[in-house]
């Protein structure tokens, strides 16, 4: 076990120990929603897949986790939800140390959409799948009906509510998975490439939903993604490289740092790329938000000549 970095208001180990012994003790209001200290993990006796990661995510933040294929992103978020056996280091969620007796409580705080939409389908119909989590939260029928209706509408799956999962297309399955988790309104939402098979339009809609959730301030969002737009919309980017955390910065900073971009296998959004290329031709314009802005920036240059 690595040395723990304790930053409770009392600054002593006692708080932690007490929390561990009795998970019902209210966690301190100042503690970050998620806190990892010296977390390492390896499958079997292979090299560590996650290597000594320390990070903390405050309540309400929208974080994206990026990195090349196989760098350990899925593994890291699975560790947060105790879906893998405990490795080294300590993981705290809302001040609760992750241990066998707190797993249940922690899982209730975290809602996770997995990378493969197929195997996370529990119900025999779309509706039942959404309801499964809600029943576990002991909600009343009216609330459940309300949630099913509103989240199905938001993700555009109202027509599919009575279908069996094996009758759905790839993107449809993914939307159901997202609806099932969001309808539970968990405090922490983790998306493991949840938009990878969505078409552009649905992806934009999902992005809007995430933005709304973020604005409401009630949710902490952790999203694994390769999508430049989604990264740009988030607040903070964590870059993983071969199991190590190599950068922790804002999206704009990331998109301008070519070295990190290269290591994290991220490609900047089209507008960023275009601006960068234009700079090479000596056309200095700032990054446009849409084609109109680009034109507005280019036209004066054109007229000047």
């Amino acid at each position, binding site marked *: 076990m690595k040395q723990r970095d304790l930053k409770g208001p009392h600054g002593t180990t006692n708080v932690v120990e007490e929390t561990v012994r009795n998970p019902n003790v209210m966690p301190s209001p100042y503690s970050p929603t998620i806190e990892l200290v010296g977390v390492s993990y390896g*499958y079997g006796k292979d090299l560590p897949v996650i290597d000594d990661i320390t990070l903390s995510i405050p309540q309400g933040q929208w974080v994206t986790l990026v*990195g*090349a*294929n*196989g760098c350990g992103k*899925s593994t890291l978020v699975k560790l947060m939800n105790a879906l893998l056996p405990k490795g080294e280091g300590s993981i705290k969620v809302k001040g609760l140390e992750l241990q066998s007796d707190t797993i249940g409580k922690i899982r209730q705080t975290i809602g996770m959409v997995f*990378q*493969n939409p*197929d195997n996370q389908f529990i119900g025999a119909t779309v509706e039942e799948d959404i309801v499964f989590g809600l029943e576990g939260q002991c909600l009343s029928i009216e609330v459940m009906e309300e949630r099913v209706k509103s989240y199905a509408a938001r993700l555009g799956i109202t027509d599919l509510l009575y279908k069996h999962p094996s*009758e*759905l*297309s*790839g*993107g*449809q399955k993914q*939307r159901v998975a997202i609806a099932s988790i969001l309808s539970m309104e968990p405090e922490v939402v983790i998306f*493991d*490439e949840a938009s*990878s*098979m*969505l*078409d*552009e*339009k*649905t*992806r*934009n809609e999902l992005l809007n939903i995430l933005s709304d959730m973020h604005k409401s301030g009630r949710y902490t969002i952790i999203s694994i993604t*390769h999508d*430049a737009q989604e990264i740009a919309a988030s607040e903070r980017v964590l870059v993983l490289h071969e199991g190590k955390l190599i950068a922790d910065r804002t999206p704009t900073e990331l998109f301008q740092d070519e070295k990190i971009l*290269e290591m994290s*296998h*991220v*490609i900047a*959004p*089209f*507008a960023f*790329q*275009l601006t*960068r*290329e*234009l700079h*090479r*031709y*000596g*056309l200095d314009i700032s990054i446009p938000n*849409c*084609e*109109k802005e*680009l*034109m507005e920036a*280019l*036209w004066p*240059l*054109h007229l000047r*000549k």
Partner: protein
Amino acid sequence: MAITFEKVNYEYDANSMWSQAALQGVNLHLESGILAGIAGATGSGKSTLLQMFNGILKPTSGTVQVLDITLRGGEKAPKLHQLRKRVGLVFQFPEQQLFEDTVEKDLCFGPINFGCSVDEAKERARKAMEKMGLDESLLSRNPFQLSGGQMRKVAIASVLAMDPEIVVLDEPTATLDPVSRAELIQLLHRLCREEGRTVIIVTHRMDELLPFANQWVILHEGRTVFQGTVKALIEQADQMESYGIVIPQSIRYWRAISEKFGLSGEDPCLSAEAMSKRIAELVSAEDV
């Protein structure tokens, strides 16, 4: 002509009380040696369409002609072994495509079935891994102990190892990181340009394929609503919205540029490099 569809319909669970139409009256003509992109909203029938290219699904009615084999709805299908050797299909979910207990066995499955010796198959497996940028040490792994992206790469490699004439891929870039994605598209582009293979790709990210594809097909609710070149696509871009597709950024930018600078009829420049080069030319051309 590599692939021709005439009035093809497909229903899931046809003839049962729960039949579900997935394709309706699809007409399609794809020449050999092209790189074609297929786009469409979720559930529009793309995956269903692809599975007809190598006879995995047979049309409920209509005619599908792929290379020299013809499948007619309602008729008994001819032997498809040869067709499958020539048409390689990568499925949408890689997890579903891998079934052996090591990556190597999975990669060798196709080549051995199509008559390679074991050694040759292994050699091909290694080459395909290299093409996909995968480490050789993964060969002895169980495919299900890979990360999502690695699994997809293995699935693609297992089809490339068969060395097919027509390569058909269902959302091959989903879950790949952007660099691998770009590399994959480059690889497929090379296969098409240098080796003359036909490559057909379903994608939700039209941007990354636009600079390379010379044909596009757009599906909407089981029908082909567009088929043609990139140029024609750009001209009709406004209709894309009604098919549930967002107009790709590069097209939007290009359209704005060509409108402002009056470039109608010019071949589009859709990659960031090409577009910026063209812009620079345009901006400085006025000097003269």
